[in-house]
């Protein structure tokens, strides 16, 4: 009896064409899946998608909002990509962002009358150090006892978010804030300048500069080479005399510091105070973005804008009575299909007939 069977054959090198085609097909499939869901809930998917596109990329206001969302996504994605490059699975960007925001807020709340040339650099440094130290908390046990960083970074997210909640509900709450969980507004000196009159702030330049720096580090630098070797084979790295522990500590610290910078940019550039729920999960979306971009810093910039648009589009359709969670669902679906498609970049599918029984 003849029967057809599939067989996956490992490719020696990932197929270059697939590297580009897969994400594209994944996005299309995710949209298709979302459409099925929308039809089932009685909506017209094309109308919804058109609306999402219109309100995120099709108007000046939409574009601005998209960029506003893209900035923290870019920064946190760049942060985690640095750790991912060394196969350190830092999924704590969310917590590192919160700690960065918290430390950056401390300065204007405690010394409201600092001049701008002390205030902004001070907030920047504090935010980065706090995010870095928060990540370092997990890097130390990882380096010494090989404690799984996935668990520790994830757990510390909850600690950081609740810690900020404690502050804004408690000691840092603005007495004049009619009981809202917010701090007093920052002084003007503590606000990152915007682009013209828009809400797009100078955080965008941090992201652009960092992307260029990381691209150079990954591709041309001695340190990037070390990270690459350690990430590819720890045993080979040790054999080559590389200091693995020291690199784990540094990479995690810097990865956290970049996410901390995202937090600082958020409170200083957008909100102007510290408050409950400053991030709608940027740090988690960052993981998806870093993965979709294959840890390529320049790709991260583009993918972040797309995900920013998805988020803004999600808010826009709420007006139509469609839950904003549609956007979140699409994000999840895209990642799902990309990971599934990964098989095709690394394996070749073979279809062949087989005679009789094995």
């Amino acid at each position: 009896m003849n029967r057809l069977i599939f067989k996956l054959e490992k490719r020696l090198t990932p197929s270059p064409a697939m590297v580009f085609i897969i994400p594209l097909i994944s996005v299309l499939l995710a949209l298709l899946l979302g459409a099925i869901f929308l039809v089932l809930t009685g909506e017209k998917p094309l109308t919804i998608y058109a609306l999402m596109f219109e309100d995120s990329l099709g108007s000046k206001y939409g574009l601005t909002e998209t960029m506003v969302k893209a900035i923290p996504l870019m920064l946190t994605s760049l942060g985690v990509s640095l750790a991912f490059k060394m196969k350190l699975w830092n999924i704590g960007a969310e917590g590192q962002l919160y700690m960065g925001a918290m430390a950056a807020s401390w300065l204007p709340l405690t010394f409201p009358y600092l001049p701008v040339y002390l205030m902004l650099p001070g907030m920047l440094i504090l935010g980065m150090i706090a995010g870095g130290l928060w990540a370092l908390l997990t890097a130390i046990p990882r380096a010494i006892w090989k404690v799984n960083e996935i668990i520790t970074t994830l757990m510390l997210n909850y600690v950081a978010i609740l810690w900020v909640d404690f502050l804004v509900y408690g000691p840092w709450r603005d007495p004049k804030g009619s009981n809202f969980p917010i701090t007093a507004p920052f002084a003007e000196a503590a606000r990152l300048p915007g682009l013209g009159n828009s809400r797009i702030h100078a955080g965008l330049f941090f992201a652009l500069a960092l992307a260029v720096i990381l691209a150079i580090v990954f591709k041309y630098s001695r340190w990037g080479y070390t990270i690459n070797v350690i990430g590819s084979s720890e045993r080979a790295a040790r054999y080559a005399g590389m200091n693995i522990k020291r690199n784990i500590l540094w990479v995690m610290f810097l990865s956290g510091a970049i996410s901390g910078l995202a937090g600082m940019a958020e409170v200083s550039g957008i909100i102007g105070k510290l408050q409950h729920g400053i991030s709608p999960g940027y740090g988690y979306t960052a993981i998806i973005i870093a993965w979709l971009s294959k840890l390529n810093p320049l790709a991260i910039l583009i993918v972040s804008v797309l995900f920013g648009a998805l988020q803004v589009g999600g808010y826009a359709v709420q007006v139509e009575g469609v839950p904003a969670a549609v956007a979140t669902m699409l994000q999840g679906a895209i990642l799902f299909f990309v990971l599934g498609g990964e098989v095709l970049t690394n394996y070749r599918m073979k279809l062949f007939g087989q005679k009789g029984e094995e």
Partner: protein
Amino acid sequence: MNQSLIQLQGIVKKFPGVLANDHVDLDIKPGEIHAILGENGSGKSTLMCVLAGLYKPDGGKILVNGVEQKFRSPRDAIASGIGMVHQHFKLVEPFTVAENITLGEQGNSFFLSNKDLKARINELGKRYGLEINLNAKVWQLSVGEKQRVEIVRMLYRGSKVLILDEPTAVLTPQEAGELFGNLRRMAAAGCAVVLITHKLNEVETIADRVTVLRQGKLAGVLEHGQINAKEMVSLMVGRVVASKYDRDSSPVGGVVLELDKVKASNDMGLPSLREMTLCVREGEILGLAGVSGNGQREMAEVIAGLRHVESGKVLLNDRNISNLSPRTIIDLGVAYVPEDRLGIGLVPDLNALENLILKNYHQPEYSGRWLLKSQAVERNAETLVKQYQVKISSLRQPVKVLSGGNLQKLLLAREISSSPKLMVVIYPARGLDIGATEAVHKLLLELKSHKTAILLISEDLDEIFKLADRVGVIFDGQLTGDFPVEQADLEEVGLLMTGSCSARERVNVDEPAHI
């Protein structure tokens, strides 16, 4: 003479490029302990995997109690009463001992109460002296106890033939002694025990019959009473072809490497090097012979700074380098070609450019304070690949696509080009074809002519006798022999490798631990 329990006739097993078993016969009788002896790669494990139903033979027959059987899976083999205990245990760590033993047994656990099961297992254990706590979780057990669980599991499934793959490799001498006592008892009860090993002293003490394999072929069968170390070695090793290389006989220089009573442990924390002492001189190849697992890897790692020295000294040109960092030792001129070419010596996913600067990427030649000098890196790779005749289609392709011989050439190119004072190579030609082997050997001889001290660790006596100026033997973490190559006798070296001349009895079998 009683009837055979198992007969293998003319078993052939091919793997891509290798004939692992070439018409091998084997005959196992009930109540005997039958050793399968041979060097690494001689086809012992393959043959046993065929018998246990893991591999399908490309030719030959398996007869159980005189009836031909075709095994499609290990389940079929188990149904015929053949059970195998692998070197790496196949146990579910978080489960209890009892759960592991009954795992995969279908159709009984539902109605048979736990109590009955446990009573059955306990009864089995008592009969053979294999007592274990059935309620313990497997991860809590020592290696010896885990092995006992595996054996009981096979007995529980009704195995009449028990195959053990190098069972003592992971055991302490006490545990090994205990195991042998238990195996005796099983044989006495009518089971057949098949022992895969390359340790002669174990065979001498426990086996009733020995089948020796060499390079995939049956080399001979020794009956009880014929079993002695000398006979086994000559079957295992065969005859060595005369030296083919022109040996450079220029006088050697001063001592470069000296190990002075070095002690170190293996990955499991068991003592591996026991007061290892040796020295290698400038322009000399010391060929260190030994059956793998006697401390070779640990010794190489100790020298390279990758393993902690517990006591004793490692001296490089009279400087104590024990427990210095790997980087410092590299910079002092120690090159090391490890056993695992791909994964330690070379990074599989990186390309040739990147792999060729693995050890010196930080030097001013290849990088500034921040950036790598990509042109210098490329020039380096181009030169080395040409000079060492590495066949490679692109310098930017991950090295994992290269063949074993080209990987080894690439690795040697990097290590040799650092002009080392000392080169440590371990099993340099393992798995390579004749052409690649010769190329590797030529490179080592050329390095020697540049006054480098070379420590060549190998289990291939042919290789050692061809290349070495001096032959050393390592057994159980100690140097048990050291001769100039002209005075080294192949058989004597072979015997020393298996510990036969060693005064120490490693395993005491005469007294079973408990009755």
